[in-house]
């Protein structure tokens, strides 16, 4: 029984740790989709965040790395926004291009800096902070309150975004842009600017998620290490019904699905691990199939809006 308790506690720690990058990216994407932009290039922001985090950490230490990662993700999103929002190109194709290009160019930068052999890079990592009292709560305490600063940022974003989206005038305007850009424009809301800002915000949080991968989760960088996290984050937004609370819950659920593979491998090393690697993706699909019928995307999602 005690062993089970320890196991479930370490499982929860892993689940939260793996859920945090999904939550960060998905919370940002929630804002972007509420403004009517679906950014498949989120995956690109995550990988740039991971690389930016790595380079930043080498130059400025782990916290500088986190900031650099967020910035790198934001810049990738700015490229996406320049095309998909400012030039009004197709959001889905543009996002796909940004993802492909990001995976390519991060690889190019990485290889030119560290050589094509890809020698395992050791990065200064971001330490966990234990929250004094809360971390002592049995089982959930260490899982939720003995994490790196990125986790606390994710927790903080939930009420902040909930307040922003549903309780402020700017949030109302942003949601109007996502529901009906025509109506928002007629009400004097600057559609293009709102969408640009929302997309870049999502890029910042996705970049932070990438930096979490390299600076908290692994302590290294590898090409393609984002491994579809950005795509899963988009599915997480759908499952969380475009609502910060729901999104963070869905992200933790997927963190749990990923953690399961480690927990089960600890039990039996012969289990075929690729199947467990596939698990979060299969679960994403199953959850989309099961839940989507009951949730509704913003009506103006992926809608075009020309300038002027």
């Amino acid at each position, binding site marked *: 029984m005690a062993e089970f308790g320890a196991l479930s506690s370490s499982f929860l720690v892993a689940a939260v740790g793996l859920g945090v990058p999904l939550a960060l990216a998905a919370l940002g994407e929630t804002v972007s989709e509420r403004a009517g932009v679906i950014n498949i290039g989120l995956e690109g922001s995550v990988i740039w965040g991971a690389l930016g985090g790595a380079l930043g950490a080498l130059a400025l230490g782990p916290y500088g790395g986190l900031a650099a990662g967020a910035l790198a993700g934001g810049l990738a999103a700015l490229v996406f926004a320049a095309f998909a929002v400012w030039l009004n190109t197709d959001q889905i194709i543009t996002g796909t291009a940004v993802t*492909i*290009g990001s995976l390519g*160019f991060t690889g190019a930068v990485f290889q030119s800096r560290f050589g094509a052999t890809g020698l395992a890079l050791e990065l200064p990592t971001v330490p966990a902070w234990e929250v004094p009292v809360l971390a002592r709560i049995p089982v959930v305490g260490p899982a939720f309150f003995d994490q790196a600063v990125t986790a606390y940022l994710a927790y903080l974003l939930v009420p902040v975004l909930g307040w922003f989206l549903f309780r402020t005038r700017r949030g109302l305007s942003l949601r109007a842009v996502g529901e009906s850009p025509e109506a928002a424009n007629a009400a004097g809301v600057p559609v293009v600017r709102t969408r640009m800002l929302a997309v870049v915000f999502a890029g910042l949080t996705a970049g932070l998620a990438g930096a979490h991968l390299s600076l908290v989760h692994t302590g290294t960088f590898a090409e393609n290490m984002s491994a579809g996290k950005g795509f899963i984050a988009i599915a997480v937004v759908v499952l969380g019904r475009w609502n910060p609370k729901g999104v963070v819950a869905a992200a933790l659920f997927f963190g749990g699905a990923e953690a399961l593979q480690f927990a089960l491998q600890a039990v039996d090393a012969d289990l075929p691990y690729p199947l467990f690697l596939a698990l979060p993706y299969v679960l994403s699909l199953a959850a989309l199939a099961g839940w989507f019928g009951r949730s509704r995307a913003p009506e103006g999602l992926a809608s075009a809006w020309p300038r002027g």
Partner: protein
Amino acid sequence: MSTRTRALTPALTAAAALLATLAVAAALLALGGYPPGDAFAALFRGAFGTWDRFVSFTLVRATPLLLTGLAVALAFKARVWNIGAEGQLHAGALAAVAVAVALPGAPGFLVIPATLLAAAAAGALWASAPAAMKTGMGVGEVITTLLMNFVALFMAQFLVQGPLRESRGVFNQTDEIPPAAHLPDLVPGTRLHLGFLIGILIAIALWLYLTRTPGGFRLRAVGASPQAAEVSGRFRAQPVVWLAFLASGAIAGLAGGVQVAGVTHRMYEGLSPGWGYTAIAVALLARLNPLAVVVTAIVFGALSAGGGAMQRDAGVPEVWVRGIEALVILAVLTVDRSWQALASRGSRG
């Protein structure tokens, strides 16, 4: 716009996009400390330097791009955003190997069709899950096809590590398929195989289908406006969407089968360097026209064949090629947008 200029626009778009890509790529290469001239020269030599480079490298690499490019073009024509050609290709490759290995003594005229049909069927099957989710539950296919790609990759990994692992058990790969299942060479003395011809035939067939048949007309109508198709065309859009998904998946699956039967003769992890994604650039640059896909697939085949030479001779990492593919997509979108802006300035009011 006159009819003449309208006919020329797609070609102009493609040419302008390629030029823009070259310019941006050159700037980025220079920024990265590589002399762009040397890099492009190496790339060109690697792709077109000799007859054998062109046929055995450029055209051989163009083959899976041709098939996946056609798959994407067909789907996009029906406004089905199939981003899942990569996964469908893997499903097709696995099915092809499984069938070919299971028929060791069969003659080529039996085993080759069986192999390729199995590949197409597996690709269609892989596409049917997102199709069902889109038509039955209203779940957008962009995310589902993307997620299915990862499932396919991990499934391939699992199979080549376990159930389909080669009998000598050294590497994570399947056994080699029997020689009877190998696709015959197309040009003697080169590595170009029958798959390239299959791709060209499918391109012609798709072009005829889309432009000359009632079914292709319905598919284009659904792509242009599902509401108008239903109200004015009086046919249900849903079966057409299904057809586009399944046919697109089948062609992408065939790409996997052709690659296995024509080039690698076995399945292993990392069979595809991302052809299913490059296919999007191939199809877009071709303006979704199947015949033009033949040309753009060769362009990207050359990029891929030249990428290795660029790394070897100019020291530019091969991953740059992925970046250049992305630049092509963005350039096409931008040039396209500029045309539209010009055209709408002419007709709005």
